């Protein structure tokens, strides 16, 4: 809707106006997840196809469950929902505490048993 007499240059619309709900509000002020660490490449999958709304589960939680019907990394969830990673971590903590998502933390290079992952990546890249 356009306000009469106001120059279009001075209006903040859509993304420029900022989010309607601040990320901080979505986590109800929490900066840390209740459980888990959630690396950027931790992989997340929903354990259920659908989640009934309940106390403590908001629209953003439901959006994550919807997105994680396919396996997603924490970074991908944040990018697709256009929310800061820190916010996503808190929301994922809520879901993990309710066993609504399953999470796999990434392996460290030192923890790799042999060279098979390196070889698989090299062969996979060559085959692209």
């Amino acid at each position, binding site marked *: 809707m356009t306000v009469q007499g106001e120059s279009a240059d001075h209006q903040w619309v859509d993304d420029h106006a900022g989010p309607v709900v601040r990320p901080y509000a979505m986590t109800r002020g929490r900066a840390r997840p209740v459980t888990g660490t959630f690396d950027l490449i931790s992989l997340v999958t929903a354990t259920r196809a659908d989640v009934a709304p309940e106390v403590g589960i908001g629209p953003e939680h439901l959006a994550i469950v919807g997105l994680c019907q396919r396996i997603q990394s924490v970074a991908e969830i944040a990018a697709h929902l256009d929310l800061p990673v820190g916010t996503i971590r808190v929301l994922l903590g809520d879901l993990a505490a309710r066993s609504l998502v*399953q999470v796999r933390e990434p392996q460290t*290079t030192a923890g790799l048993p042999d*060279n098979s992952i*390196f070889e698989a990546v090299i062969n996979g890249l060559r085959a692209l």
Partner: protein
Amino acid sequence: MDYGHSDRPAGATPLPTAIKILVAGGFGVGKTTMVGAVSETRPLRTEEVLTESGVGIDDLSGVEEKTTTTVAMDFGRITISDDLVLYLFGTPGQDRFWFVWDELALGAIGAVVLADTRRLADCFPSIDYFEGRGTPFVVAVNCFEGSRQYRLDEVQAALNLDPGVPVLLCDARQRESSKEVLVTLMEHAMKTREARRRAAGAN
């Protein structure tokens, strides 16, 4: 985005292993271009907000003002197989965001340092960072049109690199060229890991 797996039974699904490679270098050197050239989708952008609590953890002593800073990272994904996914992260170009690098570099299998011969010094901080952390890296010289072509040994000497660090030319816009850089990095990372294991075994 499709949600085609909604009939998947609940319970334990074997999740793939995820690994990450960093693409570092100065501002405008082509990091996001390279990520996009090899990723299966166009690069995604994720944002990390540095909050007041983050300031304490990262010990930015001397920083008097409490500010909130947003750091954007571009990243892409390559699905190698059903049980292996590779993520490529472009590091934020600004030097003052080292704390994000620490999180990014943690667990990274290796790094590509992109260099532009017209502004070679821009990649020094990245090289110092990965040398200091012991993260295996290669230097890829992005060949911009109009830039003078240098020989690889000239670049190697100018960067004062360890002779073991691979240096190669690339065109970050080209998928094949960017793939070759990643393959070289993976081979180097594998050799580095083997050498470290041998050294650890000898002690």
